[in-house]
């Protein structure tokens, strides 16, 4: 997918996907410990490590701790992750010793659906679990990433099919079906703090936990985001416009993507 193109101050053209990836990368602070999923999160995390956050620590669910891949991994278990890791541990250990106790600062998730309270669905589309309209891959590591990381970032392309009032299936909990349920679960993590899309950024309202538009991608209008959101989207009092990617960010991102050879995971 290719989004609106623009001519920012840097003079470089960029796609809305590139803006999304750059915005996601900027969300990661240096020396944070980050549990990374494949695809957009992995691209963003590797971009961050090459720009403002060289001390970022990357964990993948394949058990590679502190990995520094010199190219983008094609899957969660890509050999490049093991070869460049501080330590390679088994899958039980990565979940039990590293993720579960709340040691990880940031969990980075995507999904097929996200709802107004930040709940994610990667299981089934349709309301009959046993006879779904579309069977999706399932949970993987996401439910426990969503529960145990100190904060969660969600990266997804904006569309009414993806941004729904209520997900068909809660694979990974945000703030629960009512925006309150998470508080009763006693989880180590505080939940999704930001949903970064190709059109802008949504953040939970501190009171109701409903996702609210807080930032716009350059040259995107509020109405565009409303049209791409499946619920009546609230807009924050002040909506900032994202700084477009710098030339440096774009160059590094494109070099990174070129290492993939045969496309990013879907």
């Amino acid at each position: 997918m290719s989004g609106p193109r623009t001519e920012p101050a840097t003079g470089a053209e960029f796609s809305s996907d590139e803006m999304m990836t750059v915005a996601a990368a900027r969300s990661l602070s240096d020396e944070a410990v980050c549990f990374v999923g494949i695809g957009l999160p992995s691209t963003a995390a590797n971009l961050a490590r090459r720009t403002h956050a060289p001390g970022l620590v990357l964990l993948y669910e394949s058990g590679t701790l502190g990995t520094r891949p010199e190219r983008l991994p094609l899957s969660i278990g890509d050999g490049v992750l093991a070869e460049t890791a501080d330590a390679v541990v088994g899958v039980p250990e990565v979940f039990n010793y590293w993720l579960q106790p709340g040691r990880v600062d940031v969990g980075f998730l995507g999904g097929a659906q996200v709802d107004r309270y930040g709940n994610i669905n990667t299981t089934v589309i349709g309301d009959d679990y046993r006879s779904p309209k579309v069977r999706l891959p399932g949970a993987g590591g996401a439910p426990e990433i969503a529960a145990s990381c100190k904060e969660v970032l969600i990266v997804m392309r904006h569309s009414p099919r993806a941004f729904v009032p209520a997900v068909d299936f809660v694979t990974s909990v945000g703030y629960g079906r009512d925006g309150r349920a998470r508080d009763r679960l006693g989880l180590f993590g505080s939940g999704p703090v930001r949903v970064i899309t190709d059109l802008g950024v949504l953040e939970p309202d501190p009171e109701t936990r409903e996702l609210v538009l807080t930032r716009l991608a350059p040259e995107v209008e509020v109405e565009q985001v409303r049209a791409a959101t499946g619920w009546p989207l609230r807009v924050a009092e002040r909506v900032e416009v994202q700084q477009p990617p710098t030339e440096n960010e774009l160059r590094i991102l494109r070099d990174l993507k070129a290492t993939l050879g045969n496309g990013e995971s879907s």
Partner: protein
Amino acid sequence: MARILQLDTAVAELVNDGDTVALEGFTHLIPVAAGHQIIRARRRNLTLVRMTPDVIYDQMIGAGCADKLVFSWGGNPGVGSLHRFRDAIQHSWPVPLEIEEHSHAGMANRYVAGASGLPFAVLRGYAGTDLPEHTDTISTVRCPFTGQELAAVAALNPDVGVIHAQRADRAGNVQLWGISGVQKEAVLASRRSLVTVEEVVERLPEQPGAAVIPGWAVTAVSEVPGGARPSYAQGYYERDNGYYQDWDAISRDRDRFLEWLETEIHGAERSPR
């Protein structure tokens, strides 16, 4: 001490119709050749167990080997969906496929419990998700010290655990390194086990990062060079990413899939790749 067997003999002896079978491998070291041999032996009514069912499970499901799948993430890594898996769940083709669905953390802990001789494992998992509602092997347990409620998952003890590793010696001591997933646990949790290896050597050399599974804990070892292709074996060969992408087109269409099954599996002693 493990017996060193030909792959076809090992599958014939160890895998029976109706068995619960786990072929584990986490992107790396997937026991593809063993999976193809199970298709070739026309095993039926298997319960297939795996954290990350990918192309080899799509092939086994499409071939009608399985009537149940126990898993936590089913996809074609780096490509997209598994079309045979979807077709089985959405349209019961070629046979209905029951599913038992977990998260990775849950599945990993189920293997750990199985390997440890415990009936269940405790984890902080599934909280706030819809998974427990649909999966009987997820429950809760209360901490006897703090009163806290935690998730409990039933142990996994497959009839047969199948993995691929880099090397074994003649006593069946298995050496594997790189991303090692849940393979050791899958072997130890299973009643019988089969390890395919790149090579059987006289003596296992020292290898940084390597784990060894002692031969007395393994039922059978088969030397199958390239037995993990199209996945990879660190130190031996790279992943064949093209195969995964080609599979998307082959598997979308039932007829193309059936043709593939005839020529590449049943028509071959061993799948060319």
